[in-house]
Structures are given as structure tokens and as C-alpha cells.
């Protein structure tokens, strides 16, 4: 049975509503209303007596459709006499009159509402350009404010917030030791294992020691540590500061005359600058241990042999060439994480997005910086 039946009775239209007219039947009702496209004028009698459980939503949809149909005739037959539609409801829900008044008010509002703004490709490009410009300005400004606070700290050591610093060294450094040690160990075992397979074909097994020690000390120890820390602490910084932004905690700090850069950003960056080199030393040690263990078990290179070969393979600068990169990576990770955190505005989605951006960008920056270091060290023969 159709929910709607439109018939012509004399000079009146008669619309009978049947069956379920509750919100649950809304989809079907809307469909049938859409199919009702006879231009209407004169008087329409709307019979609700057989509509079960009529809801506000369906009633609203009916009023909307009837309004559209009478408006259609108005525009098409504008030349002829002005014809409106008079609707009489029989047995309708008590809310009908209320909805009808509301509908009239809303029609006036809709007519007055502004058209959508121009949203072309060109406009998008322009907005993107402005956004990128603002982004660059923001990053430079952020870096500048950090440097200013750091400069002040020389005159006023309390600005370094020692207690906060210690907490962050613990959270970013000490608690990261197990995972950093484990991953450095495993990766160097993998490298040694692969290297041994290839070098054994030339009878050059002993060079596995060169391969492992140089790659771990120069590159892998520091790079792996930095990537792990970026994932752990970069995200934590962004999320922690981001939530404080959402709670207006940073605004509260500013209102109390406390610089959020000083109390939130600087301790985190300095903590990373302290923690990351120390973690790198641990990663280096574990990497060498992994290489040594695999050499002993797989290639039967004894520990004294391994260490003496290691001394020959390594230049005095090899260890430092790795370690010197750690503070630079620390600054990059810390700055990206805290900057993205400070950018959080308004919504939980922003928080999630910027935390992701913080991790991805800090890992990217670390690898980019590592590549630049590789070129630099080659040029200066370090």
C-alpha cells in the first residue's frame, strides 16, 4: 500500500496518508514524496486519519514537498493568475500547526542566506600559498622565541626549569633504553648476518667486523635511536602540548605571565638534547655487542680477534662522527613535536592530525639531516 494517494475530488485535491508515518519509515516516505510531482494549486485536503504514529520528521518532509510543489506552479504560471495552495489538514498530529509556522519562518531565512563562496582551483591555490607562507613564518618565529628564551636563561638559570628538565630526561631517555637497546642489537645482528653471507663468498669473513662497527657507529646507532625517539617522544610532545592547548592551559600560563615556550617547550627540547646522545652511546654499544655475538657464533671470530680487527677498522673519529649528529637530531625532533603541539586548535581531530604530522615530519627531518651530514663529512674527510 502506498503511503500517499493523491486524487482529484471535484475542485479539490485530496491527499490520503496511509501506513507508517513515523521517523523509522522516513526513507520510504521521502522517496514517495519525491515522486509526487503534480503541480498543485487551489485547495488540498490532507487526510492523516489512516497515518500511524506520525512523527515530526515525516510531517516536516511533507510540508517541505507541498511547499515546493505550490512554489513550482507559482514560477511556471507566473504569467497567468497568481495561484497559491491552501492546505487543510484533517486529523494530523498536534505539532502540525507548530511545524507549519516554523516552515514559514525558515523559508524567509533561506531566501536571505548568503550564496556559497567562490571555491575554484585558483582560489584553492591562493589559499594554499598563503598557508605555506604563514607556516614558514610560524616556524621561523617559533625558533626565534626559543632562542630568545634560551638567551634569557643564561642570565636567569631558573628559566631552565631543572625539575621539569629532569622529568623529561627520564621520560624521553631512561624509559626508552630497553627498546633502543633491543632494536640496535637486533639490527646489527641482521647486518652482520647478511654481510657474512656475502663476504664469505670472497673468503673475506673478517671484514664483517669492519662492516658492522663502521655502520653502527657512524650511521645506524644514532639514526635508529633518533627514529625511535621521534616516534615515542615526538608524538608525546605534540599530544601533551596539544591537549593543553585545547584546555586553554597555555593561555592560562600566558595570562599568569609565564611563557609557555619557557615552561613547556624548552625543557622538552633540552631534555632530548641530553638524552639522545646518551641513548646513542647505548645503541652503539648494543650494536657492537650484537655484531660481536653473531661473528662469534656464525663466523667463529673470537672476541679478541673481533676487538683487534675493530681497532684497525675504526678511525679515531668514527665514533664521534655518529655521536655529533645526535644533538642536532634531538633539536629537530623536539622542535617539530612541540611546534605541532602548539599549533593544535579547536578540535580532537586537529590533535590527532598534528600528532601524526609531528612524527612523520620529525622522522623525515632526521633522515634529511643525516643525508646532509653524510655529504658534509665526505667533503671534509671526517
Amino acid at each position, binding site marked *: 500500500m502506498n503511503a500517499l494517494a493523491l486524487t482529484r475530488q471535484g475542485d479539490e485535491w485530496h491527499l490520503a496518508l496511509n501506513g507508517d508515518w513515523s521517523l523509522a519509515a522516513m526513507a520510504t516516505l*521521502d522517496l514517495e514524496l519525491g515522486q509526487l510531482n503534480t503541480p498543485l494549486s487551489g485547495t488540498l485536503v490532507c487526510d492523516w486519519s489512516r497515518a500511524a504514529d506520525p512523527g515530526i520528521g515525516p510531517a516536516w518532509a511533507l510540508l517541505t514537498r507541498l511547499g515546493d510543489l505550490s512554489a513550482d506552479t507559482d514560477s511556471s504560471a507566473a504569467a497567468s493568475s497568481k495561484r497559491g495552495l491552501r492546505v487543510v489538514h484533517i486529523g494530523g498530529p498536534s505539532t502540525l500547526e507548530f511545524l507549519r509556522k516554523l516552515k514559514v*519562518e525558515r523559508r524567509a531565512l533561506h531566501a536571505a*542566506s*548568503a550564496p556559497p563562496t567562490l571555491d575554484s582551483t585558483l582560489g584553492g591555490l591562493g589559499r594554499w600559498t598563503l598557508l605555506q607562507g604563514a607556516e614558514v613564518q610560524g616556524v621561523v618565529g617559533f625558533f626565534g622565541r626559543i632562542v630568545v628564551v634560551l638567551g634569557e636563561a643564561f642570565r636567569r638559570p631558573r628559566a631552565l626549569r631543572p625539575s621539569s628538565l629532569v622529568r623529561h630526561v627520564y621520560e624521553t631517555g631512561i624509559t626508552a633504553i630497553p627498546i633502543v637497546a633491543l632494536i640496535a642489537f637486533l639490527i646489527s645482528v641482521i647486518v652482520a648476518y647478511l654481510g657474512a653471507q656475502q663476504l664469505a663468498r670472497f673468503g673475506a669473513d673478517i671484514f664483517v667486523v669492519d662492516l658492522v662497527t663502521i655502520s653502527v657507529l657512524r650511521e645506524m646507532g644514532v639514526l635508529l635511536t633518533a627514529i625511535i625517539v621521534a616516534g615515542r617522544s615526538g608524538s608525546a610532545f605534540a599530544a601533551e602540548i596539544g591537549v593543553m592547548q585545547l584546555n586553554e592551559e597555555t593561555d592560562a600560563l600566558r595570562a599568569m605571565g609565564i611563557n609557555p615556550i619557557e615552561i613547556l617547550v624548552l625543557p622538552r627540547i633540552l631534555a632530548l638534547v641530553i638524552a639522545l646522545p646518551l641513548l646513542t652511546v647505548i645503541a652503539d654499544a648494543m650494536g657492537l655487542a650484537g655484531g660481536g655475538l653473531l661473528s662469534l657464533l656464525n663466523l667463529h671470530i673470537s672476541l679478541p680477534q673481533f676487538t683487534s680487527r675493530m681497532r684497525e677498522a675504526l678511525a679515531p673519529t668514527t665514533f664521534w662522527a655518529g655521536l655529533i649528529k645526535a644533538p642536532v637530531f634531538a633539536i629537530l625532533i623536539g622542535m617539530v613535536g612541540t611546534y605541532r603541539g602548539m599549533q593544535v586548535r579547536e*578540535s580532537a581531530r586537529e590533535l590527532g592530525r598534528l600528532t601524526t604530522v609531528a612524527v612523520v615530519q620529525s622522522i623525515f627531518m632526521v633522515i634529511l639531516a643525516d643525508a646532509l651530514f653524510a655529504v658534509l663529512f665526505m667533503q671534509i674527510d671526517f
Partner: protein
Amino acid sequence: MQEPASSSIIRVQGLVNRFGTQVVHDGLDMEVRSNEIFGVVGGSGSGKSVLLRSILGLRRPDGGTVELYGQDMRHLSREQRSRLVRSYGVTFQNGALISSLTVAQNIQLPLREYFSMPEETLDGLAELNLALVGLPPDTARKYPAQLSGGMVKRAALARALSLEPKLLFLDEPTSGLDPISAAAFDELLLYLHSQLQLTVVMITHDLDTLFRTCNRVGVIVDHHMVTDTLEGMLRSQHPWIHEYFHGARARAAEKEVNG
């Protein structure tokens, strides 16, 4: 939803709630009748929000029974429970609009969850609910963060109304609003209450709202609830209730309403 035999829609009996050793409710009784606006009042920490959470089934009480439409939520199957949850609307203190969705999407969220409807239908219903709470049509496309405090409260009400409930729970609907917006919200609530035949349970600290809208008031004192009409409350001899309804702010609100 079937009409219950008696006209009481919510019946709370002997409700006990405690956190560790701290007792919040100790044998609290409450009854809300059909088609009334029931105000819940109490000092900070007296457990108004805990009571609301217990009624909504968001918190399992430590004792007592809570019945909505004569049904105890704890004894219902998943299916029945879901149907019961659909029969009421709730607004939370800070709006609790989902911040990653537009206002229209927030309103459509329960509709999408329970019905399958084409987009145009959903848009029509979003427009209806915005109209009900008196928000302009262009609010539909905005995100909650772009709204003022008063608009957030109205948008939350629009979402609560989207399933066409007959029962509404409002947690401090006028807190944080300026007096003009708060008064406008009171009028809106009275208007919807009369037009849509709603039963409303409202937690509020706003004495103006209380005097303007509520038929009966339940005051949580000493871990129990004292329920009476406003006139009855004004005559109460209980020291806290007397203080609450006869303090300087209360007198001003009363004078304003009673002229």
C-alpha cells in the same frame, strides 16, 4: 514506546552510589511524571551528575533500582536496551558535540546509526532540528569549534531531539551562557516542551531557569532527594534548601518571575 500504566516515566528507588568510602547517594528516591519539567538541584559534589549517569545507564549503581518507562535497564536484552536508549535524548554540560563532525553531521549521527536514509532526507531532518532549536540554516555546515557557547547548547539540543524522543535529559543547559542567551534557552525549552509534549529532566544551578521552567524540583541533600513544587520548596524548613531558595540570588530570580 508504549504508554506506561502509571504516568511516572522515571522511577528511582533506594539508589545507592559510592566512590570508595565516600557515599554520594544513600537510598535516593526520585519520580518523574509524564509531561513535566523536573529540575534537579544540589550543592557541588552532591551527585547530580552521578544521578543522571545512573539513570542513563552510564554508571552501574551500587544499590537500588532505576526504571525508565517501567523497565530496569539492567534486566534488558541488548535489543530492548537499544530501543530504550533511542527513546530519550541527552545533552551534556559542555555540549559534547563530536568536534570532527559538522553540526549537521552531529545531528544526523543517531539517524545514520539507526536508520538507513538517503542524504537528502538526512539533510532535510538536520534542517528540521536546526529549525526546532532556532539556529540559522548555515549553522549546518559549521564545526562545533566555530560556534558560540549558546549555539553549542542549542546544537546539542538539536542532536538530542533528532530521534524525536519524548523524554529529554539536560545537564546544566544554561551554564556558561549570558543572561539573555540563558533566558532565550528557557523560552525555547518551554516552547518545545509545550509543542512536542516533552518530559524534561534538567540538572541546573540557574535559579532563573528553575523558576521560569520547572514544574517540580528535586533537591539532593544529605544523600537523599527531597521532591516538591517550587512553592513547597520555598516553605521548606530544611536549612540547606531554605538557604538555597531564600539566598539573595534566589530572591531576585523569584521576584523577576513572579513580578
